[in-house]
């Protein structure tokens, strides 16, 4: 089933980073993700959205609900953070803890990966970067 797009947030300033994670948390609360999972997702979004403002200047975050018929049936939130920025020259390096080209701690991408259930990144120099995250609601 194709994901239902719920929201698109343009990322151009650090205010938009806050907006993106707040909207995602609202959506996560609607899907009854646990409070901890809401926080993990919001934190991951903060990391990938900040990468947009740091490296690409502008981009967007798309939030959608994903459903699997199962069994077991489950729902989750898919986050797509994409930009048409410079891309990442060495993805393996960028996914390593502690590596940074932007003056930070180098926790952004590898950290975000640890906070969600699914993580995918596509990037090409001078084309841009798309990071996709999925957080599933836990079976209850």
């Amino acid at each position, binding site marked *: 089933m194709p994901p239902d797009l719920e929201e698109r947030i343009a990322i151009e*300033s*650090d*205010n938009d*980073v*806050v907006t993106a*994670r*707040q909207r995602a*948390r609202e959506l996560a609360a609607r899907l009854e993700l646990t*409070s*901890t999972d*809401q*926080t*993990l997702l*919001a*934190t991951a979004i*903060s*990391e990938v959205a*900040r990468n947009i403002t740091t490296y690409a200047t502008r981009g967007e975050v798309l939030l959608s609900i994903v459903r699997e018929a199962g069994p077991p049936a489950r729902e989750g939130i898919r986050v797509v953070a994409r930009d048409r920025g410079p891309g990442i020259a060495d993805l393996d390096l960028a996914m390593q*803890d502690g590596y940074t080209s932007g003056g*930070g*701690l180098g*926790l*952004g991408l*590898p*950290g*975000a990966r*640890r*906070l969600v259930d699914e993580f995918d990144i596509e990037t090409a120099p001078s084309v841009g970067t798309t990071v996709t995250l999925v957080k599933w609601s836990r079976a209850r």
Partner: protein
Amino acid sequence: MAVPILKQGPFLIATIQAALTDTDVLQLQDDVMTQVTRHRSRGIIVDVTALDVMDSFVSRSLRGIAMMTRLRGAQTVIDGIQPEVAFAMVQLGMNFEDVQTALDLEEGLALLQTQEGPGNGAT
């Protein structure tokens, strides 16, 4: 949204009241350093009870406050990190080991007062 900083005796108390943008966090760093210098403060408490996310930028900046104030001879305590936030910080891989933390504002103040010691100028 600026973070209010209150002076209480030899200490400063900065209470974060809403989600912080990166600009707000950098402003807080500046403000704390200015006030520590102006008041010759011995300790700073940053209350983060209201923060529902502490990503790598916020964490690094708060740690920066602790390092910078220490160089000025003042101790910083971060209090009120929410359980979910603590969970996320560990998963993220944040190293906060060299930063003093406390459960809440009351315990943060108690910690600073202990370090200040009796008859150590806290009038």
